[in-house]
């Protein structure tokens, strides 16, 4: 049995909407082992994004603990969490979220600006990340000059350039055509197989989910190992 890299213990999360409290995550406990490729599935509004945000340290649970590589991230202050994210987590979003005024190179370089690396060291890292996603010929292109699939590959390069242990992806193929989606999924599989990254991917898409080693299902804030009796 491999070590769990993420250990989630009894977390819950609710949102306040006016005077109403909407519970989104109910008492979830589970481990993610090192090197796993986990797919989180579930209907829209079931809390997938919320759970992913909690694991990635961009949101805090109302109760419970999340321990990542031995660090209880629920206890970290805002700025500690910020530094922790920069080092430990790579992010891939549905809508790529590249900075429109920066080139592919600069977008990928962005997370490295917070590291103590020199300019030439940064350049080396950026180039190898862009080589992994096969976009060396698009270095100086702005996001607008790239296709959706290419933008998502730039985003993947940005996610891996700091060499984080964990990569989280929120519906990374949700906005892509079939061909681009396949490219992106191939890349993620490769990151998992070849580079040993632990990947947590939220998806709607069964074909995408099948690439994962583990699939978990969220339904109304509860986590299951098999789909609820809906037609997922």
């Amino acid at each position, binding site marked *: 049995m491999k070590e769990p890299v993420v250990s989630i213990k009894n977390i819950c999360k609710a949102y306040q909407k006016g005077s109403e409290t909407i519970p989104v995550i109910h008492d979830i406990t589970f481990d993610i082992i090192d090197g796993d490729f986990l797919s989180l599935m579930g209907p829209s509004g079931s809390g997938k994004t919320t759970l992913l*945000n909690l694991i990635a340290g*961009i949101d805090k649970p109302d109760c419970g603990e999340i321990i990542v590589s031995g660090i209880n991230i629920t206890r970290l202050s805002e700025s500690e969490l*910020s530094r922790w994210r*920069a080092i430990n987590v790579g992010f891939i979003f549905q809508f790529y*979220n590249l900075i429109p005024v920066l080139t592919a190179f600069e977008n990928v*370089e*962005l*997370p490295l600006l917070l590291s103590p690396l020199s300019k030439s060291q940064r350049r080396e890292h950026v180039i190898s990340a862009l080589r992994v996603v096969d976009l060396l010929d698009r270095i100086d292109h702005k996001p607008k000059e790239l296709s959706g699939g290419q933008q998502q590959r730039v985003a993947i390069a*940005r996610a891996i350039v700091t060499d984080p242990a964990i990569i989280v992806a929120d519906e990374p193929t949700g906005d892509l055509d079939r061909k681009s989606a396949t490219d992106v999924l191939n890349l993620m599989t490769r990151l998992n197989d070849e580079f040993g990254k632990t990947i947590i991917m939220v998806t709607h898409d069964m074909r995408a989910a099948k690439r994962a080693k583990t699939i978990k299902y969220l339904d109304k804030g509860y986590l299951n190992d098999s789909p609820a009796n809906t037609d997922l």
Partner: protein
Amino acid sequence: MTHLLILIYRNLFRHKLRTFLTILAVAVAILSFGILRTVIDVWYLGVEVASANRLVTRNAISLIFSLPVSYREKIMSVDGVKSVSYGNWFGGIYIDEKNFFPNFAIEPKGYLGLYPELVLNEKEKIDFFKDRKSAIVGEKLAKRFGWKIGDTVTLKGTIFQGNWDFTIRGIYKGRDKNTDETIFFFHWDYLNEMVKKTMPTYADQTGFFVIGIKDASRAGEISQNIDSIFKNSLAETITETEKAFNMGFVAMTEAIVVVIELVSYIVIFIIMAVSANTMAMTVRERSNEYAVFKTLGFRTIHLLGLIFGESFLITMSGCLLGIALSFPIADLFSASLSEFFPVFNISMQTILFDVVGGCLIALTAAVFPSIKAINTDIANGLRKLI
């Protein structure tokens, strides 16, 4: 740091028209502010340039009433007085009323001695002293009407009836750039001589005395001593420093100055609101990007850098443009409105005010959007919930 600057710079060009219009609006506001401040400065210029070593004595009832010129000797005898001269507002018109400029009948030698800021070369000075029917004029005034040395200029009297001919014997320059170069001076003797013939009861009278004192700190005491000499005489006097005397004129128009000052601040206030609104719009559009920055580990300081940096870059570009434009505009003012504003120079202080105004605009524009951007949590920013 360089990356931050690059990012700020590129962000400016995302909405070129918006950025351009904002810069232009700030420029116009700073320009208006600077010009209005200068109008105020110029208004108080008489007070500003007044020498602390000069006192002015006038009739206690009102400036309209004159004083016997014989007072000069008595004033001279007061302890601390160095020199005394005198003059009279003439109120003459050159051809047409719209050609207004100040003109005075003065006692030349003493007066020019007391006003070293009126610079005249030796020859012109001597020519002026020698010729009783001559006048000296400021360089700006001479330029305005194309007068040259030797020209005869006719003024139409208003207080003293008739046409008065003068020969220009000198053109004085201001020692400082704030010296008024639009005044016309001629011999009090010439005026008095004519008055003797036409209105003998008004002969040997003058409007005011200018007194040079040795020690500015004794101004109060000397003034009192002068006034006490003429206590209970037919023409009692009021003596005050030249500054206070000039202030008396400005005080009459103080309400206007207050309004101008108010308007100058309102201009700044309005542009603050406009810039703040623009900045808020910009930051709102980028809330998603700020969330991405935060996700990647960038912190408050970085976001502040981005927002304040952009605000300062836009505002200060506008500010510099406004300051640059204010010089030609001031020259235009100076040229076309010289009868109202004999001197119209933008002071160092006004430029400083412009820059401070620009900084204030940049700060207020950035503060509220920054607070909003910082306080939006990442999850909401990414969801575009704001």
